[in-house]
């Protein structure tokens, strides 16, 4: 997977360029995990392929908020509106089975530049925006969760400065907001203790801020002394993530060195918290092309995706992945090799 950068006067873009074949499923999952928008390219002559459906499914599994189906090579089908509409309706049928948030269709000829940057003169029947115009204007500001305050504690800042009375007792909880908005004066709950306190100040090196929201990196100061360390979570009293040791998740397996099987022992890293987990059960393996669920499957191999039940040695503070990608996503690590062997998306926690 390669990252590429470009900018227009309106926006800057990072392209995560991932190959499309099934043996690169893990690359696609990785690229999609941070994407705001995915573009799936379809050849107008060939129509929807198995891999178009697979890509659409992965986009939805990873909750990429925006999807564009770009129907390319329209020049080779005489810029036929009928052909475009046919592909569009076929895809819309398929997408109705998926949890697609926002879907757009653009007919293109990349070779001739039709509808890439400016509107095509050869397709007067198409009244939508060019691809670039869509990319520049798609509304992504609402994609972040600004409702559910989530602050995974990353690092405790204690300057230990005896020469400065203000810094002598300074104890700041540094981290990046994974959701919601926090303000000085807000009542907050600390997990795992369940103790409540109030935010006294929100600090950055550039001064105090009146409110902090995702994805700001800030330092929280609390009114009460609570024993808080890395891996803990600060949230609002009436809106906390689930503190759970039993988690069900969709897992994409990313190694060919071993398989995921029931009773596999692994390390989980979820936000800033690391724990050991055991695979309790493989509920089913999903065929990423047909969406068929194989409930008799007894393992996941490289690039396979399945629904898994995990039991962790200590509670994780999780949300459903559909609600928050940061607090709903985790990686699995092989304890012996230290390799990242899996990626998980929380479906539910008990």
């Amino acid at each position, binding site marked *: 997977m*390669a990252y590429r950068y470009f900018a227009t006067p309106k926006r800057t873009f990072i392209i995560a360029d991932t190959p499309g074949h099934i043996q690169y499923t893990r690359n696609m*999952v990785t690229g999609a995990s*941070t994407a705001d928008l995915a573009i799936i390219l379809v050849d107008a002559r060939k129509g929807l392929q198995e891999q178009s459906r697979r890509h659409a499914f992965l986009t939805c599994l990873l909750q990429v908020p925006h999807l564009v189906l770009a129907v390319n090579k329209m020049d080779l089908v005489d810029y036929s509106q009928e052909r475009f509409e046919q592909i569009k309706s076929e895809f819309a049928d398929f997408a109705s089975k998926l949890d697609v948030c926002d879907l757009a269709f653009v007919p293109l000829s990349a070779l001739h530049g039709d509808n890439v940057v400016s509107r095509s003169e050869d397709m007067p029947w198409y009244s939508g925006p060019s691809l670039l115009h869509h990319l520049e204007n798609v509304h*992504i500001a609402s994609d972040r969760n600004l409702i559910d305050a989530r602050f995974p504690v990353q690092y405790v800042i*204690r300057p230990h400065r005896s020469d400065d009375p203000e810094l002598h007792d300074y104890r700041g909880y540094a981290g990046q907001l994974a959701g919601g908005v926090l303000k000085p004066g807000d009542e907050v709950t600390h997990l795992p203790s369940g103790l409540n306190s109030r935010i006294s100040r929100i600090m950055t*090196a550039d001064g105090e801020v009146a409110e902090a929201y995702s*994805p700001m990196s800030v330092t929280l100061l609390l009114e009460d002394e609570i024993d808080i360390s890395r891996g803990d979570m600060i949230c609002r009293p009436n809106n906390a993530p689930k503190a759970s040791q039993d988690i069900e998740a969709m897992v994409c397996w*990313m190694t060919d060195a071993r398989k995921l099987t029931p009773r596999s022992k692994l390390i989980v890293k979820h936000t800033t918290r690391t724990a050991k987990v055991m695979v309790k059960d493989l509920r089913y393996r999903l065929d990423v092309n047909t969406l068929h669920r194989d409930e008799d499957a007894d393992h996941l191999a490289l690039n396979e995706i399945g629904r898994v039940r995990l039991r962790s040695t200590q509670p994780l503070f999780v949300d459903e992945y559909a609600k928050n990608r940061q607090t709903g996503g985790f*990686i699995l*690590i092989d304890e012996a090799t230290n390799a990242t062997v899996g990626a998980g998306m929380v479906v539910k926690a008990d």
Partner: protein
Amino acid sequence: MGQSSQQAPGRYQLSQLDVLEAEAIFIMREVAAEFERPVLLFSGGKDSIVMLRLAEKAFWPGAVPFPVMHVDTGHNFDEVIEFRDRRVAEAGVRLVVASVQEQIDAGKVTEPTGRWASRNRLQTAALLEAIEEHGFDAAFGGARRDEEKARAKERVFSFRDEFGQWDPKNQRPELWSVFNTRIDRGEHIRVFPISNWTELDVWSYIERERLELPSIYFAHERRVFERDGILLADSPIIQRDETETVFAETVRYRTVGDLTCTGAVKSTAVELDDIIAEIAATRLTERGQTRADDRASEAAWRTASARATSRACAANTCPAARRAASTEHAPATGPSSHHFDPGPGKHEQRHPAVRHGGLRRRRQEHPDRPTAV
């Protein structure tokens, strides 16, 4: 996608620089929390200056909880060393110098000799030895993915084995912002917190934060000579032949490094604004050629190559690369090449480095830059 710096962000929206800063701070805190002995590579160059500022911000009001290390070729610009020492003192961090000269004196490496001599390749050995000697398990570098094509696939956390080697097949997938920091004894990780920044972002951040830079980044009059289209500083440590005449020119440097192979560009940019305008102007021109995508991207990669070439010593260059290097006189563009990029396959064929069989590595052998894919 970030908000543009040109648009005022709305409520609950951060500017692009703020998003990048928050990400870099997150990465630095993650390393400080999970590694025992991190170190920040600090050359006195613009990227490492940004990194040191980010480190100060990440742990403020606490001190930066790791030392900085300069891999010193001994072929330095005086202005840069003066700046390095002053900035390190101001930040209150410990400076570790990994000296290539000491390695040469101790007979651990052999210094290349002759007209094309450069110590670039010796930097890696000095770096690895210092990492081992000090037991560093994570080293922050200021490399960016937009710098050159070979870096586009690099991870933020780049795993090195006990020989300090980077194996492209053995890199870890990076999902969301969950980074796997686990290593065994003797191994280390290079961490690139500003991976997602472009050259323009770096300059914009320097301006916004009012960061001081070594004076050689700004236009000044210097005695230089031309070698293969590259303007090199007149210095006792560079052997000139009789055809290479020295003349005075108004130049600035876009990177700092080994004086023997870091090329200057003609420029009248004396203020940060001028430099940013130069970069932004080039970017606009490139973007204007949206229809000639192929040509534009080749030109952009040539510029990128040229930039690498101007720093990679001539010993590693070939006529094709030297031709590419002549485009260096254009105003500075990041090889960030802000344009649509048709994809890796096509480029690799067109890329002069790949097309030209006899060419070895033209890029600078820089210790905090991983080997090309």
